[in-house]
């Protein structure tokens, strides 16, 4: 099989994702936030009142599109496979921990790449932490870490999260008064609903088809010297940088003055280390969890709910960072979540696998 044939599709998908991200930022999303799974789940948690941080509340159509786009592609490819029951509480808790780390850094791994493509050098520090966390995760995997088998489940198990997404779309379009929508801050900055929804659908379908995963790229490079998924990661970076330059989005290579970011290097490093480690144990980055949840995995759906609850905690208890910097409570939470994640890793080691 030719190299281009083997890797061409994931490179193309990465390029498309990067361009779409640049376009979404151009159309109104916050800077370097064309996509951010962590930020957008956090905004959704706020919109339905799970937290009351007034500047980050909005039902992000991108998330709805990602899940439903993945579902359509999975159905079309006959890959909609309803599975679940692989350590749901561990997955919920790991999802929670991923969110605590991501909101320390201010972005999921995908936004980390987008931030680098916008010149944000703090995200390079985050990337180093992310890679370190993934390396730690591979040590657990080599030690026999497993969350055990998933098993076939009734179809409803696989449909519930996508149905919830349809419900969120109805709420977004109806905009009843009991919802919370930011009137200032990042939550008020958004591309038009139709553009955001279509962007999500396209990226969801592409990510389902190509298995695009920010964690998987570095993980497979470490474990198997397999650089396939990493090519997608690099393609996103290149495309968003070029896209930003063409569209006139801000691209300043510096630590200071970056949008929705802070300059606390140690905690950018540790936050993303937590995201990397917990994501390896989950089997994929936050984007991949959404895609798998759309493809019938109730285990990933549980991880997504864990992330949403984690986001609510982060903003109810002042754990999330802001452009002003990190918080003491957030730093304590990251340390606690690192301990919890390592404990879940250690508790699920198995020396001999079948």
């Amino acid at each position, binding site marked *: *099989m030719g190299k281009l044939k*083997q890797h061409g599709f994931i490179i193309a998908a990465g390029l498309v994702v990067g361009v779409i991200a640049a376009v979404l930022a151009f159309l109104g999303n916050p800077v370097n936030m064309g996509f951010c799974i962590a930020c957008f789940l956090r905004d959704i948690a706020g919109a339905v009142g799970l937290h009351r941080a007034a500047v980050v509340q909005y039902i992000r159509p991108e998330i709805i599109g990602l899940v439903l786009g993945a579902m359509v592609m999975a159905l079309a*490819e006959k*890959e909609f*496979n309803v*599975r679940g029951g*692989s350590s749901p509480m561990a997955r919920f808790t790991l999802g929670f921990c991923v969110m605590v780390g991501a909101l320390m850094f201010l972005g999921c791994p995908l936004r980390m790449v987008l931030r680098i493509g916008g010149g944000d050098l703090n995200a390079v520090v985050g990337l180093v932490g992310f890679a370190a966390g993934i390396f730690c995760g591979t040590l657990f*995997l*080599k030690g026999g870490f*497993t*969350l*055990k*088998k*998933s*098993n076939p489940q009734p179809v409803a198990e696989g449909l519930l999260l996508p149905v919830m997404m349809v419900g969120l779309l109805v709420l977004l379009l109806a905009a009843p008064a009991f919802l919370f929508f930011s009137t200032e801050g990042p939550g008020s900055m958004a591309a038009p609903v139709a553009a955001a929804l279509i962007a999500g659908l396209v990226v969801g379908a592409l990510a389902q088809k190509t*298995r695009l*995963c920010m964690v*998987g790229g570095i*993980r*497979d490079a470490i*474990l*198997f*010297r*397999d650089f*396939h998924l990493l090519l997608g990661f690099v393609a996103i970076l290149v495309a968003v940088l070029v896209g930003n330059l063409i569209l006139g989005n801000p691209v300043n290579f510096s630590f200071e003055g970056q949008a929705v970011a802070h300059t606390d290097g140690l905690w950018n490093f540790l936050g993303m280390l937590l995201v990397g480690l917990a994501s390896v144990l*989950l*089997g*994929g980055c936050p984007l991949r969890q959404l895609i798998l949840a759309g493809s019938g995995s109730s*285990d990933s759906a549980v991880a997504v709910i864990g992330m949403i609850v984690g986001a609510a905690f982060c903003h109810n208890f002042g754990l999330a960072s802001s452009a002003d910097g990190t918080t003491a409570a957030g730093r304590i939470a990251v340390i606690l979540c690192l301990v919890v994640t390592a404990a879940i890793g250690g508790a699920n080691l198995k020396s001999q*696998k*079948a």
Partner: protein
Amino acid sequence: MNQIDARGYSCPEPVLMTKNALKKGLPLQVLVDSMTPVQNITRFATNAGYQVDCKSVGEDYELTITK
């Protein structure tokens, strides 16, 4: 025949299981339940110089790895 059942395990466990099982002898038969591990195992084994045959068995996939 060396056989493993990797159905239901999340990424990248099926590939790690395959990697370990390959040390125990060929041919190796790996059972998985979705296309993602089929592609991951095929990519891993092909890169490592093995031949991989894949066939559907009901809702599952059976990979046979030979030199």
